[in-house]
């Protein structure tokens, strides 16, 4: 039996996987498209559909994030607009690159390999954070959110016109801003990710806005770049609504639970699992690529189980901690002292 062109099993998989991705990324404050796109690749969707649908999923989740923080925190609209221009050009470049690779028949291979490194990189970063926590290296007081990082101060000292004055003070070269936007957009358009995990640090470290403005501006620019990514891949036949809808149905619910969990679950308790999940996801994609190369189908099945299973495990850990905390407090969500 099929519904919307998907088997019931696949439909349930998308809803439940979307739910777990929502829990995870609602908790860790990310979009989650960088788990959706590789999963679609492993499931055998063509690269452009996996990437386009990943971007569309990101667009849906960022709409929800913006409604939730409807004032979008502190936004530098001029900076956001210039960033958006760069992001648009970058996304378009990324899409063209994917379609060029598709024409020579290596789009799935190249994006798959890129994901192996991307997810391993993120996993290692989180692993380092977990080890620092374990070693009791408190990062408190290391950074004041209003401080301008030294790297940004150096970059701002190069006056390459035209200079753009920033709302929070100081100025940055339009070339730096559009360069940041273009690079993030290229990654976004090529891999089908929102790119928030590089966009926000790039705004903070390279352009040099205070942290709160970097978060708000990143969300603002991300929303429009997600819309553009959906549009450009949609026009090229790279969007599958039958995939995105069940993922969003699950994710919107999961994100509610995930963001509520931040008040009761200590991030330090689950960060090590998240790091392990990212490393497993990277290994899963490597296995899938190997399976395709050696034409061993069970390796593909194993990679799906590994990727989806690890997301389910970490998502379940968060839900378990929430339930445990609620039982302890008699149903009240007790504020986590670390938040």
């Amino acid at each position, binding site marked *: 039996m099929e519904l*919307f062109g998907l088997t019931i099993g696949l439909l349930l998989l998308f809803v439940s996987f979307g739910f777990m991705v929502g829990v995870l990324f609602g908790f860790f404050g990310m979009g989650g498209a960088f788990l959706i796109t590789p999963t679609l690749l492993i499931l*055998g969707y063509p690269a452009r559909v996996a990437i386009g649908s990943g971007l569309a999923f990101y667009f*849906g*989740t960022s709409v929800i994030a913006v409604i939730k923080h409807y004032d979008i925190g502190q936004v530098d609209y001029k900076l956001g607009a210039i960033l958006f221009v760069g992001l648009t050009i970058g996304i378009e470049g990324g899409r063209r690159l994917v379609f060029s690779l598709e024409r020579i028949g290596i789009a799935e291979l190249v994006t798959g390999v890129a994901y192996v490194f991307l997810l391993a990189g993120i996993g290692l970063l989180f692993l380092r954070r977990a080890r620092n926590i374990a070693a009791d290296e408190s990062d408190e007081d290391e950074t004041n959110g209003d401080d301008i990082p030294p790297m940004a101060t150096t970059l701002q000292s190069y006056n390459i016109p035209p200079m753009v004055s920033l709302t929070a003070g100081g100025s940055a070269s339009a070339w730096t801003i559009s360069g940041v936007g273009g690079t993030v957009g290229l990654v976004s358009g090529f891999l089908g990710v929102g790119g928030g995990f590089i966009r926000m640090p790039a705004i903070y470290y390279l352009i040099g806005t205070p942290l709160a403005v970097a978060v708000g501006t990143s969300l603002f620019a991300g929303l429009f770049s997600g819309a553009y990514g959906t549009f450009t891949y949609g026009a090229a036949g790279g969007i599958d609504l039958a995939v995105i809808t069940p993922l969003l149905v699950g994710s919107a619910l999961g994100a509610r639970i995930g963001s509520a969990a931040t008040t009761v679950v200590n991030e330090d308790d689950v960060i090590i699992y998240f790091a392990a999940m990212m490393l497993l996801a990277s290994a899963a994609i490597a296995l899938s690529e190997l399976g395709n190369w050696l034409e061993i189908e069970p390796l593909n099945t194993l990679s799906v189980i590994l990727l989806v299973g690890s997301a389910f495990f970490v998502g379940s850990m968060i839900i378990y901690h929430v339930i445990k905390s609620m039982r302890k407090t008699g149903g009240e969500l007790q504020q986590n002292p670390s938040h």
Partner: protein
Amino acid sequence: MAGYTPLDRNNEFTTMAYLWGICTMIELSTLPATVQALLFVGVILFEAVFLYVGYGAIEKVAGPRIKRAITRGE
């Protein structure tokens, strides 16, 4: 995924009174590519808002019951 065509599937999807009826009666494949793409953006925007509002309402109604069910299982 041999012979995979997302647009065919999207078309099938929409003719099945697509979710809340937003795209009912629209034959996607007959529309120009840019219009289709704009429609995708609109549909996802609508879905996201609908889901946010819908789950918010469900949470208001069913939230206390779920809380009670969780704590009762102690």
